[in-house]
């Protein structure tokens, strides 16, 4: 966690209080969803003891309440929460990794895991090389095609854990 003092905050980053409130708010919503879902199952008692919704209801309630408490704490210490959770630079780096991962996962149903992985590695090698290095096209192709092939042999063949191949499933019936 960032050790900046409360008053200094670079613009563009994510403050502790904003990040904290977002998380607490989403957890309150989650708690609410769990409570509503439990109500359908009945939250009382019948002859067989607590109904199916009894436990989850209180779980949802505790989740919502504890997150509400955390949110209130953040609001109470509003000034202290001005410090950065992530600075703009850090946030940039995180998003630069997070967004490609999201695209990678989103591509899977359409393209299968092998092709998505190849594209994912290729993207990283092409765009995210450190220290201003540039990988040659040959190298990028070698690694981004090599790794899914290795994964096929290690996981699907050796460990017998089939990976989702999507529209290319026909190719793999070797």
């Amino acid at each position: 966690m960032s050790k900046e003092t409360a008053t200094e905050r670079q613009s563009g980053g994510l403050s502790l209080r904003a990040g904290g409130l977002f998380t607490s708010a989403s957890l309150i919503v989650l708690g609410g969803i769990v409570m509503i879902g439990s109500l359908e199952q009945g939250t009382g008692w019948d002859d067989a003891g607590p109904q199916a919704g009894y436990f989850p209801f209180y779980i949802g309630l505790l989740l919502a309440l504890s997150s509400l408490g955390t949110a209130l704490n953040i609001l109470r210490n509003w000034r202290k929460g001005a410090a950065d959770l992530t600075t703009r630079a850090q946030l940039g780096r995180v998003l630069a990794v997070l967004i490609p991962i999201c695209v990678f996962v989103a591509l899977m149903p359409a393209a299968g895991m092998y092709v998505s992985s190849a594209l994912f590695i290729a993207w990283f090698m092409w765009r995210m090389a450190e220290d201003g290095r540039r990988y040659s096209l040959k190298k990028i192709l070698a690694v981004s095609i090599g790794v899914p092939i290795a994964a096929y042999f290690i996981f699907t063949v050796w460990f017998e854990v089939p990976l989702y191949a999507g529209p290319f499933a026909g190719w793999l019936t070797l």
Partner: protein
Amino acid sequence: MEQFDLLMHGMGVVLSWYHIMLMVVGVLLGILVGVLPGLGAPNGVTLLLPITFSMEPVSAIILLSCMYWGALFGGSVTSVIFNIPGEPSSVATTFDGYPLARQGRAGEALATAFTSALLGALVGVLLITFLSGYIAKFALSFSSPEFFAVYVLAFGSFIGLTKTPALKTVASMMIGFAIAAVGMDTVSGNLRLTFGFTELLRGISFEIAVIGLFGIGEILCTVEEGLVFKGEQTRLTPRIIWETWKKLPRYWATWLRSVAIGCWMGITPGGPTAASFLSYSVAKRTSKNGDNFGKGELEGVIAPETADHSAGTSALLPMLTLGIPGSATAAVMLGGFMIWGLQPGPTLFLEQKDFVWGLIASMYLGNVVSLIIVLATIPLFAAILRIPFSIIAPIIVIICSIGAYAVNQSLFDVALMLVFGLYGYLFKKLGYPIAPLILAAVLGDKAEDAFRQSMLFSGGSLGIFWSNGLAGTLTTAGLAMACLPLIGRLFKRRTPAAV
């Protein structure tokens, strides 16, 4: 004595070339996951679970536990050489380990770390060897109310005894319980919390949570600083090892203290990470060279490493005897047991003697094998870390995705893993603890069953949890610990001077 015979019997089960090969493979994989960010011990063990489905339970647990030891050792390697803890439990090792490396004494630091680790782990295993039989026998008399009381104690102590803010711990735990509740209810057969999503019919597997929170979340945290591994030069020759071993005996008191802290925090829900930090601060305060801590003091490496490993091993004691894991990785292993059809707890010691004592015997061998392998392969792993991050990072993410997919052959799980990953990042930055979430996710169903069974016995009265001395004590202790933070707050207000 009985335990010794059982242990020898276990050794007999374990000693085969196949098992030794599994140990070596497990340790190597463990060091690998310990060294790479995003692939820690809980995640690594989770990723191996699908592979173990076709194995004998004994072989499977040998593989997994050796991976655990390897990961614990591996985390220390990067702490010392790169100032990057490979495992949360190796953070404290960086405090003095890295300064030592910068002074050109990396070999000494590593040899110290590994040796302390081995000794700490062996004490943990000894504890398991001699105490597990008694605890298991004692737990045989447990019925649902007692089990639920133990769960109350376990979760209560997480809330009360760990340093993280209680509200966040409770929230984290509740998320875990909610995850466990999704899917088919064991008692009534109703589908809960599925909201019409067919993918949620089989519930949310704890493995997805582990891989997302620990794996993707960790990668996101690591990436923040634009990671480039710049390591210090390391020379680890037998001569350096020998010289270091000559120096170590003088720190016997530190070692003893650290072992005690580690075993205590392993058995109670503290875990290896908390153990390493606590041990470091205690050592710093009690040592003659306390001021030198942080500048490259060997004692500053011995303390956290010993505690971390003895906690890691003793976390398996409550897991095996009571079915209560003392750390996130132990929770994952518990999940593994359930998948293999084994019921951890007292019945395990009665009905699966081969398995249990085979496991315990393998812990001795596994730790020794780990030490040998890790000393020999440091240059190899240091070299692996020189692979550019732009290649390693996507590979780690791909491995995590494969792991998430493999659990239920479901792409939905991969998407879920990503959501967990995002929250894992937020949680780490905001100080929400993740271990209680995993514990709750793994134990949630059992805790609920124990509660409902007890209610059936008592016809709806909560008094059953205080119906006998044992259950009553455990329940009260658990509730008391859960309320500790609250009581602490009240005291602070009354005595403003004592802050």
